[in-house]
C-alpha cells in the first residue's frame, strides 16, 4: 500500500504555474462589465467621522458609485464575534475610525486608475481622538476607550487553574519569573487580497470570487453580516492562490464590502489590494505581553507555571479572534511533563490594525516566552539548557499524553528527536568551540527549542474564550470535519473534488497520490479540482487551509472518499464474479480474487456497469460512481465543564538547535547553522513536507529578526512598505539541515500529522536563545523581538556600562 503515498512525486501544479497559466483571482474575468473599486482609508488611528463629502468624486470620469458607512449600515449587520462583549464591527467605518487604514469610503469606477482619482477627491472631516497602541496602557483605567458601548478596551478575559498550582508554588525550591514582549508582524504573501463581487438583485444573490481560503466558519459570519440566507452568498475560490500563510482568512470583511459595493453600484466590482493597504490594514498576528512564573526545584524539575498572556487584537476583535490566545491552550506547557498550570488570558483592543490567522497562529507568541524561560531557568540553576529541557520532556512511554489543560498528545518520542538535533548540531563540540571563541573576543552561541506542533484544529477550542456557563447557552462546538468527492465518469476518468483551498501546498499532487494508490491507477490519470465553490463543493464549517490540517484531515477525507469508490467497484465485482468482496483486490486495472487470479474482471467493465448498465448492479445499489466522504476525528471534543479542551487532533514535535555569531560592536547576528528535527508522523510526500518546513522556517526567521509592524504612539504605522517592513531574502536564509522522525499518529488513517508551522513557532525562541547564549559574557536578557542589530547593540551597551563579566 505504499507505492505512491509517502513518495516525493513531482507536483502537478508546477507546469501551469511556470507557463503563466495559473488562475489567480486577479487574472479572472468571471462576470461581464466588471468595474473597479478603490478604498479611501483613515489617516487617523482614532477619530470621529464628522462628515464625508463625495459630491465632486461622483461627477468624475468613469465613476459609478461612492459608498460610505451609511450604505454599510443600510445593507449589513455587524459581523458576529467570538466573545460575549457586543462589538460592532462592520466592513467599513460607520461613525468612528479605530485604526489607520480603516476603510472610510469606496469608489466604484470604470477602471482602477479612475477609481483612485476619485478617492483623492473625497473630503472627510474628522475629529481626532487620543489613541492608544500599547497593551499595558490600553488596560489602564484612564486609557482612551475605543468602543464606548463596552466602556473598556478589554474584549475578553478568562482565568484557568489546572492541577494544583498553589501547592506546587509553595513546595518548589524557588520561583523564577519574567515578562516577555512579542511584536506584531504579518505574513505578506506576494499576492495580495483580491475580490470580484456580483449581485443579482432579482434573487438577492451575492456571488463572490476571491482568494479567501477559509476557515469556512467565516462563511456564516459573512452571510450573517450581509443579512442573507447562507445559500445566497456563493463564494468561489480559484485553484491558485498566491500564498497566504493564514492572512487571507482575514479578507472576509472585504468580501462583504465589495458585495455591498456591487449591490449599490449595480455592476460587478473588482478590488485588488495593494501592498500599502496590505501592510496597513489587512491582518496580522497579535502582539502579546506574557508574564511567566515558574515553580522550580534545584534539580531542574519544573513543578508548575503561572502565565498571564495579553493579546493585542487591534481596533476590533473580529472572528476568529480571540483564537490566537487559545489555539495553543491545550499545549500551553509545550513538550514538558509539568502538571500544574494557572493561566490568565486577556484580549485588548488598541488603535492598531485588527488581527487574525498568521502561520504559527499563537504558537510563536507562546513558545517565545516558554522556551526563553527554559533557558533562563537553566541559567539561574547553573545547568546546561539542553539538560534542563531533556529532564522535563514528556517521556516516550507516556503517549497518548494528557496535558493539564486537556490536550491529548497522540504520539511521539521527544527524547529521541532532541538527541538527533543535538547530535546533528554537534552540541557538545560547539560548547568547546564557544569557550575558545569567547577568549578571543568572538561571540558564538548555541540555542535550542523543543516544541509541540499542534495541527488540525478542533472547531470547539475557540469557545474556551467563553465561560462554561456562557458555553452552555448554545450548541457545543467540536470536530474538525473535511469533505471530499471522488468520482469516475463513464469513460473511466477519475476526478477528485477537494475543499481544502490550497495556496501553494500542493494539495492537488497529494490528493492524486492518495486516490491513485487506493484505486490502483496512475497518478496522472487522476484530475483534482481544487476550486472552491460553496454552492457545489463538499465542505464543512471547518474546511479551508489553516492549522496545518491537510495532512491529518483533508487527506483523510480524500482517502475515505476513494475507499468508498473502491468498495463500490469491488461490490460490483463480487456480484459479477461470484467471489466474496473480502477476497477481492484491485491490480493492474482489474478486480482480482486474491486466492484465485483466474477470477478477474476489468475495472472498465465494472465502471461501465455502474454508468451504462445499472440494471446489472447488485440489488439496491445506486447507479454511478460518485462518492463523497466527510471525515472528522472524535478526539476533537467540545470543551469540558472544567475548561479542559483538546484543541487540535494531532501533535507533532520539533526540536531546533541553532548556532550563531554575534558582533558586539554592531549587534549583528549571523546564523551559522540551523538544525531542525521534525516528527510529523507519516510523511505523505517528503519533498512537499520539506518545502513546507523551509517556508515556515523562513517566516519564523523573519519574525525573529526582521519583520515588524511598528507603530508610533499616535498609532501611525512606521513600516508601511517593503522598504521598511523587511522580509527575508535569499541572502538572509542560513544553512538549514532538516531531519525527520516518523512516529505515526494512531488517529489518522495514513498516520500523518500536520506540519509547516512548527518553525514559525520555534524560530524566534531558538534564535533568541542562541543570541542570549552567545552574549553570556555580557549577561543580557532577550525578552523582546525582532533581534535587530540596534536592539542587541543597546542591550550590550547597557550591560557594558555596568560590568563585563570575565570569569567564564
Amino acid at each position, binding site marked *: 500500500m505504499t507505492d505512491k503515498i509517502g513518495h516525493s512525486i*513531482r*507536483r502537478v*501544479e*508546477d*507546469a501551469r*504555474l*511556470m*507557463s*503563466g*497559466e*495559473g488562475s*489567480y483571482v*486577479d*487574472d479572472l474575468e468571471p462576470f461581464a462589465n466588471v468595474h473597479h473599486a478603490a478604498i479611501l482609508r483613515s489617516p487617523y488611528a482614532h477619530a470621529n467621522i464628522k462628515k464625508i463629502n463625495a459630491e465632486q468624486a461622483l461627477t468624475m*470620469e468613469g465613476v459609478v458609485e461612492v459608498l460610505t458607512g451609511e450604505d454599510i449600515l443600510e445593507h449589513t449587520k455587524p459581523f458576529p464575534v467570538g466573545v460575549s462583549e457586543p462589538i460592532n464591527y462592520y466592513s467599513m467605518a460607520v461613525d468612528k475610525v479605530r485604526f489607520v487604514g480603516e476603510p472610510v469610503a469606496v469608489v466604484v469606477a470604470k477602471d*482602477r*486608475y479612475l477609481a483612485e482619482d476619485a478617492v483623492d477627491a473625497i473630503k472627510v472631516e474628522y475629529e481626532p481622538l487620543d489613541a492608544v497602541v500599547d497593551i499595558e496602557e490600553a488596560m489602564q483605567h484612564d486609557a482612551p476607550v475605543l468602543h464606548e458601548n463596552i466602556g473598556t478596551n478589554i474584549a475578553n478575559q478568562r482565568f484557568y487553574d489546572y492541577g494544583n498550582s498553589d501547592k506546587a508554588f509553595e513546595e518548589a525550591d524557588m520561583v523564577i519569573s519574567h515578562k516577555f514582549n512579542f511584536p506584531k508582524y504579518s*505574513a*505578506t*504573501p*506576494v*499576492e*495580495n487580497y483580491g475580490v470580484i463581487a456580483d449581485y443579482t438583485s432579482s434573487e438577492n444573490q451575492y456571488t463572490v470570487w476571491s482568494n479567501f481560503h477559509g476557515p469556512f466558519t467565516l462563511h456564516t459570519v459573512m452571510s450573517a453580516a450581509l443579512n442573507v440566507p447562507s445559500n445566497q452568498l456563493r463564494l468561489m475560490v480559484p485553484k*491558485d*492562490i*498566491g*500564498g497566504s*500563510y493564514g492572512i487571507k482568512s482575514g479578507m472576509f470583511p472585504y468580501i462583504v464590502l465589495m458585495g455591498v459595493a456591487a449591490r449599490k453600484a449595480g455592476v460587478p466590482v473588482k478590488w485588488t489590494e*495593494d*501592498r500599502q493597504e496590505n501592510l496597513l490594514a489587512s491582518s496580522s498576528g497579535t502582539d502579546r505581553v506574557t508574564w511567566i512564573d515558574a515553580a522550580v526545584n534545584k534539580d531542574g524539575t519544573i513543578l508548575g507555571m503561572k502565565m498571564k498572556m495579553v493579546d493585542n487584537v487591534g481596533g476590533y476583535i473580529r472572528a476568529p479572534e480571540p483564537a490566537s490566545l487559545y489555539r495553543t491552550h491545550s499545549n500551553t506547557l509545550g513538550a514538558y511533563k509539568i502538571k500544574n498550570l494557572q493561566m490568565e488570558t486577556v484580549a485588548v483592543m488598541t488603535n492598531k490594525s485588527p488581527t487574525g490567522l498568521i502561520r504559527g497562529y499563537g504558537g510563536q507568541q507562546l513558545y517565545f516566552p516558554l522556551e526563553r524561560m527554559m533557558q533562563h531557568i537553566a541559567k539561574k540553576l547553573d545547568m546546561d539548557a539542553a539538560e534542563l529541557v531533556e529532564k522535563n520532556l514528556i517521556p516516550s512511554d507516556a503517549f497518548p499524553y494528557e496535558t493539564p489543560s486537556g490536550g491529548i498528545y497522540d504520539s511521539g518520542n521527544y527524547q529521541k528527536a532532541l538527541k538527533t538535533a543535538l547530535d546533528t548540531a554537534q552540541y557538545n563540540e560547539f560548547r568547546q568551540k564557544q569557550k575558545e571563541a569567547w577568549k578571543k573576543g568572538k561571540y558564538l552561541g548555541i540555542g535550542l527549542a523543543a516544541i509541540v506542533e499542534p495541527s488540525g484544529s478542533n472547531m470547539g477550542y475557540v469557545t474556551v474564550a467563553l465561560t462554561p456557563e456562557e458555553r452552555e447557552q448554545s450548541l457545543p462546538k467540536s470536530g474538525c470535519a473535511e469533505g471530499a468527492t471522488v468520482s469516475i465518469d463513464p469513460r473511466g476518468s477519475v476526478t477528485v473534488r477537494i475543499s481544502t483551498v490550497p*495556496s*501553494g*501546498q*500542493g494539495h492537488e499532487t497529494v490528493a492524486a497520490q492518495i486516490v491513485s494508490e487506493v484505486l490502483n491507477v496512475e497518478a496522472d490519470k487522476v484530475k483534482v479540482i481544487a476550486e472552491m465553490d460553496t454552492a457545489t463543493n463538499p465542505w464543512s464549517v471547518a474546511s479551508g487551509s489553516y492549522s496545518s490540517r491537510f495532512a491529518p484531515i483533508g487527506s483523510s477525507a480524500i482517502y475515505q472518499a476513494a475507499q468508498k469508490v473502491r468498495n463500490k467497484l469491488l461490490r460490483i465485482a463480487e456480484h459479477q464474479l461470484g467471489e466474496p468482496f473480502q477476497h477481492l483486490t484491485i491490480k493492474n486495472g482489474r478486480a482480482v480474487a486474491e486466492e484465485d487470479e483466474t477470477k478477474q474482471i476489468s475495472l472498465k467493465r465494472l465502471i461501465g456497469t455502474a454508468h451504462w448498465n445499472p440494471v446489472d448492479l447488485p440489488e439496491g445499489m445506486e447507479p454511478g460512481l460518485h462518492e463523497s466522504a466527510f471525515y472528522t476525528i472524535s478526539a476533537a471534543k467540545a470543551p469540558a465543564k472544567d475548561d479542559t479542551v483538546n484543541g487540535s487532533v494531532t501533535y507533532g514535535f520539533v526540536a531546533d538547535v541553532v548556532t550563531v555569531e554575534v558582533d558586539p560592536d554592531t549587534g549583528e547576528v549571523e546564523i551559522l547553522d540551523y538544525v531542525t528535527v521534525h516528527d510529523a508522523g507519516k510523511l505523505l510526500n517528503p*519533498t*512537499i513536507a*520539506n*518545502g513546507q518546513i*523551509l*517556508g515556515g*522556517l*523562513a*517566516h519564523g526567521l523573519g519574525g525573529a529578526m526582521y519583520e515588524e509592524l511598528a507603530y508610533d504612539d499616535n498609532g501611525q504605522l512606521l513600516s508601511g*512598505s*517593503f*522598504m521598511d517592513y523587511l*522580509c527575508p*531574502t*535569499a*541572502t538572509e*536564509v542560513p544553512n*538549514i539541515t532538516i531531519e525527520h522522525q516518523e512516529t505515526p499518529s494512531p488517529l489518522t488513517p495514513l498516520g500523518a500529522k500536520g506540519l509547516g508551522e512548527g518553525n514559525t513557532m520555534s524560530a524566534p525562541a531558538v534564535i533568541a536563545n542562541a543570541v542570549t547564549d552567545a552574549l553570556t559574557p555580557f549577561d543580557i536578557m532577550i525578552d523582546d523581538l525582532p533581534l535587530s542589530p540596534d536592539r542587541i547593540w543597546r542591550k550590550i551597551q547597557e550591560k557594558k556600562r555596568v560590568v563585563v563579566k570575565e570569569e567564564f
Partner: protein
Amino acid sequence: MIKKVESKEKMKIQTVINGKSYEKEVEPRKLFSDFLREDVGLTGTHVGCEHGVCGACTVLMDGKAVRSCLMFAVQADGTKIETVEGLVNNKTGRSLKAAFSEHHALQCGFCTPGILMSSVEFLNENPQPEKQEIKEMLSGHLCRCTGYTGIVEAVQQTTDGNSK
C-alpha cells in the same frame, strides 16, 4: 523634439512581446505591468508590491530584466519584451523550468515568473556563477513560500547543466 501630452490623452506604442508585434494606444500614466496584464492579456506577469521590491513583475526588455511595475507602458515603445509566457521558446528558460520543478522551487508560484525571468538574464550574462552570486541575484525577489533553498538549487543545477 518633446511632445506635450494632455493628461487623459492616449499615446500610440509599438512593442514586440514574445515574438508578436503589438500596436496599442495607452494613457501615459499606465504602468507597464498593468499594460501587460490588462491590455495584452498576459497575466503570467504578476504584481506584488508596485514599488520595486518584490520582483514578481520582472520581465525582459531587450534582454535585460526590468521591473514592469516601475515603468510606464509608453517607455516600452520600440522595445522587445519577453515574459514568462514566452519561455517555452527559450532554451535556458526551459532548463530552468525543469530544474524548478525537480527542486520544488515553487509552491504557490506567484513569485516564480519574475524569478524565472531574472534567472534567464542572470545565466545569459553569467553562465558559471557561484552559489553566493545566485543568492545575491535572488535577493531582488521575495518568495514567502519556499525559503529560497529550492530556488537556489534549481538555478545552480541549470548552470551545471549549461557547463556540460
